[in-house]
């Protein structure tokens, strides 16, 4: 069964629609990747899935439950977590405090979740009492992932997690994402580095101007000549 099914989403900011009849699904413990040119509405999809923009039509089903009308906080409680592309950590809080805020909605003690996250990101354990603003770019991105994982989400939404990072660090972050998926968390990821992202994708969506253009497994899309020419630079 699909963890999340979004069908025929239309909507955007104010009067102008950015998404047009867009559909996507993701299965438990799988990774879905959204690629496409600038302005295709990739980030808007993420925001729509979390309820940060108003939809004019369409339906979002999460674990068999219709969540189209739910507030963002309610979706967070149900198990959807998001890492925005920029400003995705609290720079004036310590690493540990960032993680505590990540688990803000958890009522039970969070030490277990924190230890799990630290074992996934050992560097953060070392810097737990440092201000998050002092971390390097790659460490920040890890902290952003870690913060989102503190709620033990079932679905993680990642908005360009590798933007602005050096190639070595990109590989490291991709590796972490694979580990997260292996641990059973489903991921929907928007990526500029289409090649790298599609390599690890179970399912890929190519978006153009807010519409589905191509859909397929990662390797299908990578080998599709149309996709290669238009979106992967040959």
């Amino acid at each position, binding site marked *: 069964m699909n963890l999340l099914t979004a069908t025929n989403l239309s909507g955007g900011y104010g009067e102008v629609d950015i998404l047009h009849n867009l559909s996507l699904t993701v299965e438990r413990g799988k990774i879905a990747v959204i690629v496409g040119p600038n302005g295709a509405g990739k980030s808007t999809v993420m925001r729509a899935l*979390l309820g940060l923009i108003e939809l004019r039509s369409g339906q979002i089903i999460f674990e068999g439950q219709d969540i189209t009308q739910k507030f*963002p*906080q309610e979706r*967070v*409680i149900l198990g959807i*977590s*998001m890492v*925005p592309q920029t*400003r*995705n*950590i*609290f*720079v*004036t*809080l310590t690493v540990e*405090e960032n993680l*505590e*805020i*990540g688990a*803000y*909605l958890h009522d039970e003690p969070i030490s277990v979740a924190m230890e799990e996250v630290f074992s996934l990101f050992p560097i953060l354990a070392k810097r737990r009492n440092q201000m998050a603003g002092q971390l390097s770019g790659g460490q920040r991105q890890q902290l952003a992932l870690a*913060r989102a994982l503190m*709620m033990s989400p079932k679905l993680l939404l990642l908005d360009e997690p590798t933007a602005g990072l050096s190639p070595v660090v990109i590989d490291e972050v991709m590796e972490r994402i694979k580990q997260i998926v292996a641990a059973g968390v489903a991921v929907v990821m928007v990526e500029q580095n289409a090649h790298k992202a599609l390599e690890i994708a179970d399912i890929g969506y190519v978006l153009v101007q807010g519409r589905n253009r191509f859909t397929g497994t990662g390797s299908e899309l990578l080998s599709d000549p149309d996709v290669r020419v238009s979106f992967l630079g040959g």
Partner: protein
Amino acid sequence: MLDAAIVLANFVVIPALSYGSLLALGALGVTLVYAVLRFANFAHGDTMSVATMMAIYCTWWLQSLGIDFIRPLPTALLAIPFAALGTVGLLLVIDRLVYRHYRQAKAPPITLVIVSVGVMLILHGLSRMIIGVDEQRFFDGGRFIVSAGEFKEWSGLKEGLAIKSTQVIAIVSAVTLMAYLFYFLQRTRTGKAMRAFADNEELALLSGIRPQKIVTSCWILVAVLAAVSGTVYGLDKVYKPFTYFQLLLPIFAAAVVGGMGSPVGAILGGYLIAFSEIGLTYAFKRVAGHLLPPSWVPDGLLQLISTDYKFAVSFTILVAVLLLRPTGLFRGQAS
């Protein structure tokens, strides 16, 4: 030598410490609103005024009941909790009726500043209408902890040291409140959430923090700060609605100098402003008289700036800091 130190303590250090404590509390109120609600709150001075007014009525009521078990401390200290409660109610009602609309409409900060000017006018008018424009004294209890005469007798020095009880109350209550505030911000769940919200509003929302809860706790803190700082200032000096309106500027100065949005900065800013206001306008002749041989003591008052410009000192510092380091001397919120 010792005499010089005593004069300095008596006329500069202690007054500046007590005045600075109250400015710091005021600046904390302004800076918290700036950090959480993201606007410069012009109504804060008059919020303090209304809070103090509540405390005054409460004091009179307690006095009329003959409650005086806390002598030699002033009765007004017992009134502060009631005043704080009343102010919490007032600010939450104002938030509900006025500010919330603009928050939900995502109005630009400048609109909120103008709105706070409207709130300022209403609160100012209310305090004038209810208690009147005249000075109100509501201090009772012992005036001095150490009086100049006693001190001279005890120490055998030529100069006396006088410490007013209200000065000590100001310093003690400010330090207690600051300590609690930092405990709250650093250690409690809601405090951390408040810092997170101030740091990055959208990410706080994504983490499931409810803005209304943060805003409410912010107003509660601001109300308590306003009630304590306003009442103690009134005890130490005098209560008059217009004076409290005028306090807004040194408070803003303290908050800006420390960096808007930074609690530590607000505290340091408060003391910095107080020490410069008092230090720059104090006539150091008497200090020099004890330090230098009589023939060296100059004729002038050794006063850097005339007392007339006491208020102007803080504004000048404010403007200078705004121009040289707009984020404040102690680095405020980067965002």
